């Protein structure tokens, strides 16, 4: 995986760069680098990068042949999005009957849950996600905004509905957020191995 970013370490990646992480993935995460594997931010980025690779390899290969410049822009945009999502952000509380226990998820972890839910939906490559509202107050209703690229030939409305359901179920499983609307914007279409008729 080649990335067009600076070679300077980034604060949010615990001293690593996206290029280093891409190279590390290329090597099959071997030899194990403890400074990467023991960094939550690096592992969050690796998870997103791995799913991009697994999900869209065929699409990337095809689109590369059709329009290499567009492919570069697309993949660079996705990686920039992942890089932006690893900032810890706000703390999302988890309740406990003992007030001495203060439990929370980071906003980055929640964005990771949303990304995984979308990327495992099928026919979708997730773009950006945002949590709108007061996620730090238990019981407050929040709104989710996501963008996604959809495989050519799929019904946009049905795919968006399926994505909403997946995200809502994942957030119900792994957070105590009260999710109101989930706004899905389909901002791109990609081709699978063979275009659907």
């Amino acid at each position, binding site marked *: 995986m080649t990335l067009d970013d600076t070679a300077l370490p980034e604060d949010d990646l615990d001293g690593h760069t996206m290029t280093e992480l891409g190279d590390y993935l290329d090597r099959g995460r071997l030899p194990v680098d*403890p*400074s990467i594997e023991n960094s939550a931010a690096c*592992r969050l980025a690796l*998870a997103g990068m791995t799913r991009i690779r697994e999900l869209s390899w065929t699409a990337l290969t095809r689109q590369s042949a059709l329009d290499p410049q567009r492919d570069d822009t697309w993949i660079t945009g996705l990686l920039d999005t992942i890089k932006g999502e690893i900032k810890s952000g706000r*703390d999302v509380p988890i309740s406990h009957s003992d007030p001495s*226990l203060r439990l929370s*998820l980071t906003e980055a972890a929640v964005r990771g849950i949303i990304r995984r839910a979308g990327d495992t939906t099928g026919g979708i490559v997730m773009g950006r996600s945002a949590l709108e509202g007061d996620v730090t107050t238990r019981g407050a209703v929040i709104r989710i905004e996501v963008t996604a690229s959809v495989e050519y030939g799929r019904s946009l409305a049905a795919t968006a509905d399926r994505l909403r359901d997946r995200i809502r179920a994942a957030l119900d499983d792994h957070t105590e957020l009260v999710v109101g609307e989930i706004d899905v914007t389909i901002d791109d279409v990609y081709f699978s191995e063979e275009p659907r008729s």
Partner: protein
Amino acid sequence: MIDDLELSRRLTSAIRAVPHVTGVYPAQPILEAAAGAIAVRLALRVPDVLVDIDRAEGFTTVSAHIATSAAAPTPETARAVGELLRDEFRRSHEAHDALPGTDPNDTLAINVKVRLVEDAGAFGG
């Protein structure tokens, strides 16, 4: 008597044994964590002291940052870790003499922060 370094080591190890915990990350303030990360990178230190124990003016805060597996609901895993830290910390005070300058009756706060929810079966840490 055990010191806070040894207690942190024990708590770190105990958290790793909690089902569906896939990683433990440094919970120290950023500068200490940065120094620790450099030490790890230079292979000077094994990352086994990752739970932060802060004692100040009658208040003790125990903090842990973790990764969990998506195979189980994250709130359940976070609660299990929080309860483990609370119980182990209290047990350590009962089993050992209190450290000089510390009081076992200090107000205790346990902070558990989930920084990553990983795919079930993802690479372990």
